[in-house]
């Protein structure tokens, strides 16, 4: 704010001095020119009266001639003063208006307001750098989860729709380059309320500098960055402490998992989808022969996975600079080239170029020669959504969707990511068992997931582990409804983490230990009811023993006395 004040003062220095001078000359002159009192005494006007007259004359109010009618000499001077003061004021007001319209000044005003808003944030928030397709989706998802957002993007046009979109709480936005340390600092990443920073800028280099800058400014903050190239990903990962998401690799990896055990992908999609979504089908792409349309970052990521799986593939791409590989055909996206790539004998078509029309065209051409071909299509632009959906591909790759799912996993429940990693390490049978048990407990719609930590610093957990004289505290206690005796919450444990050891699908009668973390899936009300076990020792006692202990000092003493009397 003081920056702004100093800028205003500096810019208005000349106009203010002009106004002072104009007044000084007019008032001084008027106070020197002799006037005439009604008694006929020649006497100059006092400075006070001169200032009064000039004040209303200069502002063109004009009350007339006081204290006595002017002499002609005075009138002559006032005439001169009127023109002088009009020029002075015109110059000053013009400068003020010019300053208000000045671009650097407006940017500074915007920045001051932004800083002030961020400093006033007293609730958990995320900083999001980059408001493209992924950024827009993610910000809406985070907003729906009840988090405040600070959004930074260099382009004000891209952020313009934020003002009219239906956000629960309007995000705080700034059009600036988040690579600059002062911008990052002002965005509040050092605030105790800042939950994390997400770098979703279009270029990898930008995301790298943002992530590294943020890490230096705040070593404890959670950072998620997008890296579209493998080099950038490796760079950031070696820097440490940054969760790096490469959407192409993520999709290709899931495709590889899906080739072996589609149930794993199915349960992952189900658990990470928006709460309440129906269960997705298990899709297993055929192994057969694959044709890749477009061999950019996406095509390459898929080819790598196919190589690992030992699947035969052919790709074509019009760009000449791609490396020499027999399986790579150079050519534009026409029917002839599709034939050259052997689409007649292919089982899978990956329409993965960076043009939606090319992808749709290739899909149509391939289906003409082989109607039952399995199609994986890539959607690049949000506005082509309905077109790509109409193509009814078997699998769809939307970068922003992958980004949002992955980011939410990292930001919301990091434990869910570890759970999914465990599932991926296992086989289909395990995934199928997990899915069956979870569906039985919470139904077919996508559940919420959350981690429950047996944190003994919380009064409820302290009571559960240390004040109940050795009685075991089990997972089933956490599943009981604290408001409805005997009712089970709509939730099921997915994983138990104890020190470094993890256990999938722990049984309900598992005895918990201090520091254990349990991943639950269930509905939101179950999550909120379960939180009571953390903070309310009475509730813990009640689910464990069926009676609530007295809370006050006197009642505790009375109870002890009664117990002693009974003994």
């Amino acid at each position, binding site marked *: 704010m003081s920056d702004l004040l100093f800028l205003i003062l500096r810019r208005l220095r000349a106009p203010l001095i002009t106004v*002072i001078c104009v007044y000084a000359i007019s008032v001084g002159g008027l106070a020197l020119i002799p006037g005439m009192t009604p008694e006929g005494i020649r006497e100059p006007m006092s400075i006070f009266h001169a200032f009064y007259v000039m004040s209303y004359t200069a502002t063109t109010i004009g009350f007339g001639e006081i204290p006595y009618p002017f002499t002609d000499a005075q009138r002559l001077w006032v005439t001169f003063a009127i023109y002088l003061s009009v020029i002075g004021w015109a110059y000053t007001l013009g400068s003020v208006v010019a300053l208000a319209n000045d671009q650097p000044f407006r940017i500074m005003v915007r920045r001051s307001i932004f800083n002030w808003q961020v400093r006033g944030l007293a609730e958990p928030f995320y900083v999001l750098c980059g408001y493209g397709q992924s950024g827009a989706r993610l910000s809406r998802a985070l907003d729906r989860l009840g988090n405040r957002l600070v959004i930074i993007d260099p382009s004000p046009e891209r952020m313009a729709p934020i003002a009219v979109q239906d956000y629960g709480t309007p995000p705080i936005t700034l059009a600036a380059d988040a690579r600059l340390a002062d911008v990052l600092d002002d965005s509040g990443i050092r605030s105790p309320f800042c939950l994390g920073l997400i770098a979703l800028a279009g270029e990898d280099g930008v995301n790298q500098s943002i992530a590294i800058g943020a890490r230096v400014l705040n070593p404890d903050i959670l950072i998620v960055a997008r890296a579209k190239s493998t080099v950038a990903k490796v760079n950031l990962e070696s820097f440490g402490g940054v969760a790096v998401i490469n959407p192409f690799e993520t999709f290709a990896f899931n495709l590889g998992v899906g080739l072996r055990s589609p149930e794993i992908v199915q349960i992952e999609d189900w658990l990470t989808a928006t709460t309440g979504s129906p269960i997705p089908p298990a899709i297993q792409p055929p192994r057969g022969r694959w044709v890749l349309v477009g061999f950019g970052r996406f095509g390459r990521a898929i080819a790598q996975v196919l190589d690992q799986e030992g699947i035969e593939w052919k790709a074509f791409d019009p760009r000449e600079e791609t490396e020499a590989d027999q399986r790579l055909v150079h050519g534009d996206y026409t029917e002839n080239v599709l034939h050259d790539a052997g689409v007649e004998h292919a089982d899978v078509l990956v329409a993965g170029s960076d043009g939606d029309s090319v992808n749709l065209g290739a899909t149509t051409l391939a289906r003409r020669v082989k109607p039952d071909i399995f199609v994986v299509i890539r959607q690049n632009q949000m506005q082509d959504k309905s077109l790509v959906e109409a193509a009814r591909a078997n699998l769809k790759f939307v970068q922003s969707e992958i980004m949002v799912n992955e980011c939410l996993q990292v930001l919301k429940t990091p434990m869910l990511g570890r759970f999914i990693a465990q599932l991926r390490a296992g086989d289909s049978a395990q995934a199928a068992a997990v899915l069956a048990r979870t569906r039985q407990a919470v139904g077919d719609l996508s559940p919420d997931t959350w981690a429950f930590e047996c944190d003994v610093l919380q009064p409820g957990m302290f009571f559960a582990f240390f004040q109940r004289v050795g009685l075991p505290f089990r997972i089933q206690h956490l599943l009981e409804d604290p408001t409805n005796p005997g009712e089970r919450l709509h939730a099921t444990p997915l994983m138990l983490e104890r020190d470094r050891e993890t256990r999938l699908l722990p049984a309900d009668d598992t005895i918990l230990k201090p520091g254990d973390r349990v991943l639950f899936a269930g509905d939101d009300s179950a999550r909120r009811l379960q939180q009571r076990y953390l903070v309310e020792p009475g509730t813990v006692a009640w689910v464990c023993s069926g009676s609530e202990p007295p809370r006050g000092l006197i009642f505790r003493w009375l109870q002890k006395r009664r117990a002693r009397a009974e003994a």
Partner: protein
Amino acid sequence: MNLEKVIFGFFIIFACTLNFGFFIGDIERHELHHPMELFAAVVVNLIATVLKFGDRTQLGATHLATSLVASLQLVAASMVWVWQLYVVGQPMNAELTAVVVSLSGGALLANVFSVILLIGETLRQGR
């Protein structure tokens, strides 16, 4: 020679000298303190204040503070004068003249500090 330094120094010293000119003379006799000189001192002090706007150094801030003090005191002195003549409607008496002149004396002190700062700054730069 730097024109900005000339103008800056001119106004600061001019503010001080005008202030001194008004202040000098028997504190109780209003005929020794001309209102026109007080008026000139107010105007030059205001200009000096505005000239000090926008300098963000520590020295600049102190400069601005001294000028603000001087302007405030001089404006207060002229208000006392105006009050006596036009609100009370009496000619200046000995007590009120003493009030006005002592207020301008305070302003003079602030202006002297301002000049000391100016001299100190010049000597420190040594060029």
